[in-house]
């Protein structure tokens, strides 16, 4: 069984283009298997979500998993990683044929074999994988090669097929990062080895010279040794030459770091007195144990982290099932072309193009590559002088020393480093030269300062948030210590994610909901999983969890009001407790880290509690042997979040003030990570946001009897104000409702998450969806008062009183897209449904706007309104006056967009406002 994986597809380096076309060419009905499983939704896969597995064919223990992305037991489930590693590594990974034929030379040769890509599958277990095999170099390994592979593991074979191109691109990128880092590490290892050999040679020569006069036999032995050493030196030099002169074609790629063989091989190195401890650590100790180097030592830390981020990014981008990915792709493709109306609904964003395949992908990836390039250029802009090269070379020994030292006297090193360094977790990305590193310090500093300013300007933050933020700022100092100490080691950015409070609740609900649902439907191991999660989660999450179980349980049953009620009350409770607990948790974590810095155990426990909360991908803990390093994880919340916002592929991208401040403000207040405007800069978070917004929108529809009126207001252009005492709820609802907002504008400029100044008329022309936090301190009173003046133009949704003031809606248009009795129960499903409805609506608006017979009257004064209405009524697009207003508004938006001039226009109507109470009792 082990030896017989069913090989499904195989491609060389040319890619899979043809294959995919074939797949598409087959009519849909033919590609359905003849004997479909009884339930197409069941899967015998033992993992719960797609993940990425990095495995190695270890010469000592055989194939073994190295890391998974995400590193979360809830994702991997009971899936046997070891077994699967054996299967994917048992493919002849060098089957793609030999690489460029190396020139015949006497010494050992490095075989630069091309990577191979295959799709493997185990249909019995429903585990399929796209596997990218590669080899890394390790001086101490057998044949100096270490076979590795990166696999995208998935239970749906067709998903792999459909996303082959993207997988191929992303994995190649990640593999290139890894290999580049490996070459760097390998060349450093060679350098070190050479230094060691030179040193041996010098000592041997010194020993031999005086001895030549004394005895011949001894000198003969010594001479033989010397010969061997010199041969070894030449061999190693040759290897170094080979690795540094690695194919020049790679030079074009930004990830590739060239090494000048001349520089590295010239005498200065040899003449330098070699640092004694290094060889002893790097070679002798290791030799004796013959321990294989872990991945972290095989690869330059920067490139390793880059690879991990690239893989995590891939995993995130391919999250979700086939239909979703496909819909997204089709939506993007079509929306991009449909310029007349593609601004109407937020179905795509230009940055979303990342998900495009093929030719588009190349274009879109341009910014990312330039991003990486800039970092590399930062590397290269320095002339590759000896000094700069040395600093690179010396880095690792120094780090190793530091590590060792720290285990002995942690406090000293902390103290010394505390004084000097002013950096953050960001620094990992700009490793390389001390110069670039320093410049990063400055940037980070200014960023956090700016964040502080903007933070203080937002008055509405409650005191708790403020203090916790300040604590975070204080702790930055402590954190910097670690950032400095471990900057060669990039895990911090990822691990610290585990404490990002903001991401947790919703993200988890979304994921867990899906999971529980999945479990309840499949025959799976729900209980086991649940127990596991409960064990891992803290109290807050337990509540959330039970909540979600409630929702998922209610699903198979009829929509029951009582269930909804129960759910709702539960939710209320949770929401309040959630916040308090979370805030406590943060502050506790912070204080404990300040106070108990010398008690690593406690902090670690805390950290683990928080880690368990996390649903974002994590890396396996690397430095588990150095527990005191954990101590600093928790306080780094703020900066870690900042880090999280920056796209992984553009390491040098600086955060805007907005983003930074927003991230910071979330720290203690359990807000969704939806800052004012800037979220769109990040496709991933945008998608996640939309997914969560979809779920919340669905809940809003189901829980509020007036939901259709609210949606009508948004669709007919009447500004909607959401007022509530709970800032988080307001934000969430605004976020959810923004899905319905036509023409949200670039970066959703038509949405005002959080109104802090009294409303003015011009605001109504800018924002069509606003949130107001009704603070108990009364600072919001003036804002609320300002609403009364413009009550004619507004609709007001009061979360506290559960009322909505707006014109009433009647008609059929909105019930299609916002049906409170919909059978849809998953947020994601609803999002897709909504998107398709909105697309249809936009198309109808397009038709209506550009219908020549209706819109091109002979005279400007001629009103053919009735004709227009007939058009809409007859086609069943509209069935009421309200529906007409929606169509008119959308049509007007299109007209204004394409033919409008002058300042923005607010269209309104003098329709009676009604007070709608939520009849779905709380």
């Amino acid at each position, binding site marked *: 069984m082990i030896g017989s994986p069913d090989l499904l597809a195989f491609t060389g380096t040319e890619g899979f283009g043809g294959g995919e076309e074939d797949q598409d060419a087959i009519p849909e009905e033919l590609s359905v298997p003849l004997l479909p499983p009884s339930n197409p939704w069941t899967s015998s896969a033992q993992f719960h979500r797609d993940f990425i597995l990095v495995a190695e064919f270890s010469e000592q223990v055989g194939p073994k998993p190295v890391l998974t992305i995400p590193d979360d037991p809830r994702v991997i489930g009971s899936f046997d990683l070891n077994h699967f590693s054996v299967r994917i590594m048992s493919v002849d990974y060098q089957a793609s044929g030999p690489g460029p034929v190396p020139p015949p030379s006497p010494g050992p040769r490095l075989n630069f074999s091309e990577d191979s890509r295959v799709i493997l599958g185990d249909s019995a277990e429903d585990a399929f994988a796209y596997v990218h095999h590669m080899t890394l170099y390790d001086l101490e390994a057998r044949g100096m090669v270490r076979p590795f592979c990166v696999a995208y593991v998935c239970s749906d074979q067709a998903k792999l097929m459909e996303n082959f191109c993207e997988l191929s691109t992303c994995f190649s990128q990640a593999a290139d990062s890894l290999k580049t880092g490996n070459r760097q590490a390998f060349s450093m290892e060679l350098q070190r080895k050479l230094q060691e050999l030179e040193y041996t040679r010098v000592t041997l020569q010194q020993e031999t010279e005086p001895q030549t006069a004394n005895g011949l036999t001894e000198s003969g032995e010594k001479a033989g040794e010397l010969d061997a050493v010199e041969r070894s030196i030449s061999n190693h030099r040759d290897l170094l030459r080979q690795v540094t002169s690695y194919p020049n074609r790679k030079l074009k790629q930004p990830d590739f770091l060239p090494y000048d063989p001349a520089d590295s091989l010239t005498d200065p190195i040899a003449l330098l007195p070699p640092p004694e401890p290094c060889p002893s650590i790097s070679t002798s100790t290791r030799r004796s144990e013959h321990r294989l180097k872990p991945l972290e030592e095989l690869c330059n830390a920067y490139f390793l982290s880059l690879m991990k981020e690239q893989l995590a990014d891939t995993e995130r981008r391919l999250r979700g099932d086939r239909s979703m990915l496909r819909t997204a792709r089709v939506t993007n493709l079509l929306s991009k072309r449909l310029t*007349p109306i593609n601004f109407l609904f937020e179905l795509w964003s230009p940055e979303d193009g990342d998900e495009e395949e093929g030719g588009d992908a190349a274009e879109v990836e341009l910014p990312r590559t330039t991003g990486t390039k800039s970092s590399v250029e930062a590397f290269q802009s320095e002339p590759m002088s000896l000094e700069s090269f040395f600093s690179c070379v010396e880095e690792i020994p120094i780090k190793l020393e530091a590590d060792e030292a720290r285990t002995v006297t942690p406090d000293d090193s902390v103290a010394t480093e505390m004084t000097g360094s002013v950096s953050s977790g960001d620094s990992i990305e700009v490793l390389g030269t001390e110069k670039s590193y320093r410049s990063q310090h400055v940037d980070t500093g200014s960023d956090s300062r700016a964040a502080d300013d903007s933070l203080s300007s937002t008055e509405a933050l409650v005191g708790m948030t403020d203090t916790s933020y300040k604590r975070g700022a204080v702790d930055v100092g402590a954190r910097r210590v670690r950032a400095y100490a471990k900057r060669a080691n990039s895990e911090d950015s990822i691990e610290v994610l585990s404490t990002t409070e903001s991401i947790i609740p919703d993200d988890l609900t979304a994921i867990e909901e899906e999971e529980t649902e999945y479990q309840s439907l499949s025959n799976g191991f729900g209980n086991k999983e649940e127990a596991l999660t409960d064990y891992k989660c803290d109290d807050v999450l337990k509540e959330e969890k039970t909540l979600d179980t409630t929702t998922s349980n209610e699903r198979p049953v009829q929509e029951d009001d009582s269930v909804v009620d129960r759910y709702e009350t539960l939710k209320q409770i949770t929401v309040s407790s959630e916040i308090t607990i979370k805030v406590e948790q943060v502050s506790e974590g912070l204080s404990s880290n300040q106070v108990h810095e010398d008690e690593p155990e406690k902090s670690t426990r805390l950290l683990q509690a928080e880690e368990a909360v996390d649903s974002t991908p994590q890396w396996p803990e690397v430095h588990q042997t150095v527990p005191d390093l954990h101590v600093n994880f928790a306080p780094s919340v703020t900066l870690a979040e900042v880090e999280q916002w920056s796209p992984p592929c553009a390491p040098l991208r600086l955060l805007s003030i907005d983003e930074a401040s927003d991230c910071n403000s979330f720290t203690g207040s359990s807000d969704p990570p939806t800052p004012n405007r800037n979220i769109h800069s990040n496709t991933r978070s945008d998608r996640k946001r939309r997914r969560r917004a979809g779920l919340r929108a669905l809940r809003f529809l189901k829980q509020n009897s007036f939901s259709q009126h609210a949606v009508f207001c948004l669709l007919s252009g009447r500004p909607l104000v959401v007022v509530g005492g709970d800032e988080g709820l307001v934000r969430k609802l605004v976020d959810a409702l923004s899905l319905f907002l036509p023409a949200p504008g670039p970066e959703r400029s038509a949405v005002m998450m959080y109104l802090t100044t009294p409303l*003015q*008329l*011009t605001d109504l*022309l800018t924002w069509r969806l606003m949130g107001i936090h009704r603070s108990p301190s009364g600072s919001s009173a003036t804002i*609320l*008062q300002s*609403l*009364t*003046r*413009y*009550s*004619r133009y507004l609709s*007001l949704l*009061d979360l506290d009183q559960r*009322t909505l*003031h707006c014109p009433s809606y009647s008609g059929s248009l909105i019930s299609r897209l916002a049906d409170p009795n919909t059978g849809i129960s998953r947020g994601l499903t609803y999002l897709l449904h909504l998107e398709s409805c909105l697309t249809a609506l936009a198309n109808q608006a397009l038709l209506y*706007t*550009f219908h*020549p017979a209706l*819109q*091109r*009257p002979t005279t*400007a004064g001629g*009103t053919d*309104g009735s004709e227009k209405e007939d058009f809409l009524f007859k086609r069943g697009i509209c069935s009421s006056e309200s529906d007409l207003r929606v169509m*008119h508004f959308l*049509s*007007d938006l*299109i*007209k*204004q967009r*394409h*033919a*409008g*001039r*002058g*300042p*923005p*226009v*607010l*269209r*309104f*109507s*003098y*329709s*009676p*406002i009604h*007070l709608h109470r939520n009849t779905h009792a709380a």
Partner: protein
Amino acid sequence: MLRWILGGREAQGSAEKSPVLCIGEEQPKNWFTELQVLKGHFDIVRFLVQIDDFRCASAGDDGLVLVWNIETGERLQELRGHSQQITAMTTFTCDDGLTSHTSLITASSDRSLSLWDPDTGNRVQTISDLQSSVKCLLVLERLCVWISGGEELCVWNKDFQLQCHKQNHSDTGITALIELPKNCLAAAMDKEIAIYRLTVSTDSSLSVAEIRCLSDHQDQIRSLINVNDGLFASGSHAGELILWDAIDWNILAYEHILWEESQACAQAEIRLAAPKPSEMSIQHLTTNGKLILAAVGSGLYVYSVLSKMVVAYRKVAHDSNVLHTMLLSDSELMSCSEDGSVRMWEIQDLPLPAEPASAGFFGMWTFSRSNKQTGAPIKKVTDVPNIRMLELTGDLIGHSGAVQMFVNFGENGLVTCSADHLLILWKNGERQSHLRSLALFEKLEESGGL
């Protein structure tokens, strides 16, 4: 009504503060369903002048004059030059046979006068270092001269050359100027109206002479207008409205607005025993030749020139002083006020006394306490059959400060200017949508498809 936002207490407070009727949200006769906000001023905007069918100039305390395209809402020109607030602005159309070109004349507190070309934004002429700042401007297109009034009366030709001037004795100076037949002028100075005559001598030089002083007003004259060729009218701070013969300057009618009937009929509702002068002050007068509309305090007062009597009025038409009014037609009028709103009114015949007031008719008042007050004049009206109703048909809410003035561009819309530094362009949404549609199709034709 507004209780939903603020909770009970504030709503009650606001109800007490605004005893004026409230029209609610349903306004079928109000066709202003679209608005644009024109930003550019940074102080109170006090003056609006229509340049032509699609252009309008605004000026205010920031000394800026802005020219707007009211079809699109775009700012066309920014006329900078005055260092202090603008005190008067008018258009000056010089018709030299073939072409007529409209310029703008502005006067400012910096004691300067400027002539602007609104097409290019150039300051064509300027006069500075006047003895006093000019408070009013009058253009006599027939003579191709214009007159500035302040502490002195100056006559200028189109090239900004001073033709003649006349010093005044009054402290307050000339606050309003109108043209009368036979080359005469009427100038309002405090409580008096001075009549001047312009004489063109044979060498085409002009001279001005005061020929009469009318001092029948008891209080300061606030407003002075031409009614028609034979009549002009003036209103004073004490609520006196005097109709004058334009040729022999005799009083034709004298109306003193005292609102005495409300004292008699609705004593319970009266907040102050005697009306304050400001409540009776005639802030603004407009006419269409047949009717004179007077803005009296916060009320409106429609006076028929023919019958020489009040045909309709509303004592409390706004929450605060009415600043500007306009008669749109014989039955429709518009007013704006310090309370930040613009209201549209219709002069309606009352239902027959026998006919019970239907709930639908008065329904819109029932939710506010104001129905009692509005009930008072109605009761009175039933006794006097020829008095008609002033019925609120719509209001425009948008400004957060006093609406100083408005200019009506007919079906193109309405421009209002306000103390909140903004101008608002009110339009018929349906018409605009239609126009945009046309523009879109034009653009499509130009570009040849989507």
